[in-house]
């Protein structure tokens, strides 16, 4: 019987861009249990939304997370719009899909780069981030800011994409797809990459369902769940299938995200082909009242907003359940039995976004 030691992992760790602490109960090199200690990024954002006006809250919820900021604003706007029975113009629905998928693209590229960095493949990390800058340029051109784009508004969007920009975007996406082919070869076939990812941190289908995992973690375990298929925004008019892998290990989670990059490019192309003319925002008058629980699929999984409004310019309650928060129980399960050297890969494989988790 080996002696048990508790090893704190984090909060300041070279592999993690954000502070999270896992207290690992170790038996020699094997992890027997993990206890999360979070709270380093907690700001108290839900309370802040109660003091701000409803339209100002868009800028607050965008800053829950800088990586999927557009989807947070989208979910919030969709919730308020359905409480107020506002129909959003067709063009803005498609524009929301386009920006949403651009965010998914840049988020997945970011993650692929960080994963490559975590297993020590420096040049692959640089390659992913170089490709990601193409998406960032599109963001800066269309929305005026690189990460927090602030294009969502109640009733529609704040900016339009004209035909010149459309050409630029489609050109960039063609280039991006070529580059993606190159890195896909390395990620899927390289010997060292396979050695580090295959059969590491496996989570079974049943466990993923019971532990409430969402997004790529869930889909990598063979569960087909992608909230986009319910057809919010303009997804009902676009053709795509949820991407599912069966093995449930780190490799499967990586493949899901890699394939979703291709899917996003495809969805953006379809959306541009179908982009209707017309206004980009409908007028908003009055204040919402009532309760709603609304969901959107983010790069990391499904996000839930519970909104309670009371007919004034301030909300009674805004509750956010972010995807990483739902994936932490699955993480705690999957690190059991791993060696210490595999912990960084396992943590990264759920694509942790701590600022989302703690708000």
């Amino acid at each position: 019987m080996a002696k048990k030691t508790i090893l704190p992992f984090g909060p300041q760790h070279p592999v993690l861009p954000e502070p999270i602490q896992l207290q690992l109960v170790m038996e020699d090199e094997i992890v027997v249990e993990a206890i999360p200690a979070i709270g380093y990024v907690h700001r108290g954002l839900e309370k802040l939304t109660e003091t701000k006006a409803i339209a100002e809250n868009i800028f607050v919820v965008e800053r829950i997370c800088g990586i999927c900021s557009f989807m947070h604003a989208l979910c919030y706007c969709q919730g308020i719009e359905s409480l107020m029975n506002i129909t959003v113009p067709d063009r803005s629905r498609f524009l929301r899909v386009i920006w949403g998928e651009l965010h998914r693209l840049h988020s997945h590229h970011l993650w692929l780069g960080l994963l490559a960095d975590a297993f020590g493949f420096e040049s692959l990390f640089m390659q992913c981030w170089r490709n990601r800058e193409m998406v960032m340029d599109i963001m800066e051109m269309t929305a005026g800011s690189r990460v927090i784009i602030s294009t969502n508004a109640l009733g529609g969007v704040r900016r339009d994409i004209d035909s010149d920009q459309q050409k630029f975007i489609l050109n960039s996406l063609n280039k991006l797809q070529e580059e993606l082919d190159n890195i896909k070869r390395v990620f899927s076939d390289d010997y060292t990459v396979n050695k580090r990812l295959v059969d590491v941190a496996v989570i079974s289908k049943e466990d993923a369902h019971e532990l409430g995992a969402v997004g790529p973690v869930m889909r990598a375990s063979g569960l087909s769940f992608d909230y986009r298929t319910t057809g919010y925004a303009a997804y009902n008019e676009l053709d795509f299938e949820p991407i599912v892998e069966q093995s449930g290990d780190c490799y499967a989670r990586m493949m899901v995200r890699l394939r979703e990059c291709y899917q996003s490019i495809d969805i953006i192309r379809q959306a541009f082909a179908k982009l209707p003319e017309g206004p980009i925002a409908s007028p908003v008058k009055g204040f919402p009242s009532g309760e709603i629980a609304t969901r959107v699929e983010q790069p990391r999984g499904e996000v839930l907003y519970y909104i309670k409004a009371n007919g004034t310019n301030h909300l009674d309650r805004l509750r956010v359940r972010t995807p990483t928060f739902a994936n932490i129980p699955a993480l705690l399960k999957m690190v059991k039995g791993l060696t210490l050297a595999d912990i960084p890969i396992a943590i990264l494989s759920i694509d942790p976004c701590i600022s989302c988790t703690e708000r």
Partner: protein
Amino acid sequence: MFAMVKNVIKNLFSRPSTRLFPYQTREFFPNVRGSIDNDPEVCIYCGACQMRCPSEAIVVNRAEKVWTINPYKCILCGVCAQICPKKSIAIHSEYVHPQSSKVKKIRQKKVVEEAQSHA
């Protein structure tokens, strides 16, 4: 092996993918949100921007006709420019340069000056 040689040759003759900042500053795309400025002659000091600013970065003194923005609080959402009744607030693509103290930007009727006020 051959693929690698191809890569090497391609990279030798292609342009660097790095933006050579600060030797060359790149042209920003139009409509990029970099910094917020107010034209003190057009502004009517109504205070609408102060009311709607989500991060309370703008302070308008109606009596003395002074408009102040703290760029270190500003989140560059662009709401102030959108709702300004006189369209006197403009968003420039040039970003605010880093400084060693939190200098506020003050715009005053007639006299335009950069006052140094420390936090």
